[in-house]
């Protein structure tokens, strides 16, 4: 039973990660792209928690806390960049930012 929970937890994490990755590649709205990155980080955390639960250790949950802190930092900076993006390019389409200048 314990192995079933680990395997199926990892499969669920892989499915969620794949959906988030597909959305990241196909969607062009900057906010939705950030949401897809959140989905992928959440799936990675789910894999940590499933593995930690398999052996009854707290390490998986500790790693999930670090993933959580990183996701919060990422989304704060990402949404600040989204506001700048909207102000300078007048859109939220990531394809509009196809040239770099300082």
């Amino acid at each position, binding site marked *: 039973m314990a192995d079933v929970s680990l395997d199926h937890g990892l499969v669920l994490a892989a499915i969620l990660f794949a959906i988030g990755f597909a959305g990241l590649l196909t969607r062009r709205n900057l*906010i939705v792209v950030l*949401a897809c990155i959140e989905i992928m980080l*959440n799936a990675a955390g*789910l894999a940590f928690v499933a593995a930690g639960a398999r052996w009854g250790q707290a390490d998986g949950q*500790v790693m999930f806390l670090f993933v959580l802190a990183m996701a919060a*930092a990422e989304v704060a900076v990402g*949404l600040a960049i989204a*506001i700048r993006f909207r102000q300078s390019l007048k859109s939220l389409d990531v394809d509009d930012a196809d040239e770099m200048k300082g």
Partner: protein
Amino acid sequence: MTALFYIAAVVAVLSTLMVVTRTNLVHALLYLVVSLFAVAVVFYTLGAPFVAALEVIVYAGAIMMLFLFAVMLLNVGADSPLRIPSWAWVGPGILVAVLLAEVVYGITRQTQPLAGAEVGPAAVSEALYGPYVLGVELASMLLLAALIGARHVAARARDEEEAREAATHRGAAAGEASPERDAGVPGAARGSETGVTGQGGEA
């Protein structure tokens, strides 16, 4: 508890698919909240109640609040109205009702977690402030850096906005003084626009 795990997993996959496929931004964010709730129920069935609570509080609470503020600040309401039609609540409502039934069942029946023993908050805290204390310090530095970085990026946006407004005022003043010269007002497309409208008003 096995059935609870699979039902929550199906809800998580369905709602995440809806996040990726919705064209309306507010609908996608609604489904993202449902997806995070479903993953929280999965954590609960795996015997990790502490991170299940954190998932609801931090992900579905704080991070989704940030997304909401961004949607409000960016004024996306022009193409996706913030007033959500009543049929849009049906999908997330059904999925959340399934999750709520699961949580009520799990709490009242005192079910056993899937993977043997439950790892509670006390064990997590001992590990966090024992061998992982360096990671806690690094996470605090990361959050501080993100705070300063977000403030810096947003403050530059505000400075540019003020500079643009000042240029607009200068351009308007120059346009009132001598309309012929405002083509030479430097660097302000909006300034020349206001100059043009000023000219039109005079004409």
